């Protein structure tokens, strides 16, 4: 999985509790992304980062926040989890390392299965 880890891999939580998912890369890629995948909707972009402390919203950002304090780590936080946020969450990286030619393909982590009861 191209040097990308996600933690936890599985989580069950209750409605209203905060949840933080972590994505860690060892590839030094510039850009990082969080997606959610649901049956019938495919992969949808939640937030992305184009550098340390530089983030922007994706298609389905409501209820989610992100932070990137280091190149290698990108955190996704659900401030108050709801049942509609039950999903599989994927982190992805792209862009190559600074100083190298930019690449466009994305490399995905193994995913986190989150269940909100």
């Amino acid at each position, binding site marked *: 999985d191209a040097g990308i880890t996600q933690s936890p891999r599985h989580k069950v939580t209750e409605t209203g509790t905060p949840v933080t998912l972590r994505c860690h890369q060892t590839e030094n890629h510039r850009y990082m992304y969080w997606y959610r995948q649901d049956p019938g909707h*495919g992969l*949808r972009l939640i937030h992305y980062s184009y550098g340390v402390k530089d983030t922007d919203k994706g298609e389905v950002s409501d209820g989610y926040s992100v932070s990137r304090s280091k190149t290698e780590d990108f955190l996704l936080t659900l401030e108050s989890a709801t049942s509609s946020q039950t999903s599989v969450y994927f982190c992805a990286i792209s*862009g190559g390392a600074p100083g190298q030619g930019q690449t466009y393909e994305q490399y995905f982590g193994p995913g986190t299965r989150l269940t909100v009861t």
Partner: protein
Amino acid sequence: SQKIEQNSEALNIQEGKTATLTCNYTNYSPAYLQWYRQDPGRGPVFLLLIRENEKEKRKERLKVTFDTTLKQSLFHITASQPADSATYLCALDRASGGSARQLTFGSGTQLTVLP
């Protein structure tokens, strides 16, 4: 908003035949189009990228075409094998903030190659 349709949710073909998957899009002119493979319980894996000024791209048994007039991409797997069974995703690609790439994915076509 952008809409991407992959022609069928499931496609079954016989081993050795060519599988053809379709990706149609509306309301958008992507600079690039990408294809990914996803196995159950795993993250998507990048296969091929084709640029808007390219008609065709090949990699081993894989071929992708891109028709910006029809707003359609075709993905072919020749001499298909049971190991090719997976879900295949197409994604439209455009630049975003800081030159990050935003991908908009189709919902995928589940391919089963029967021995």
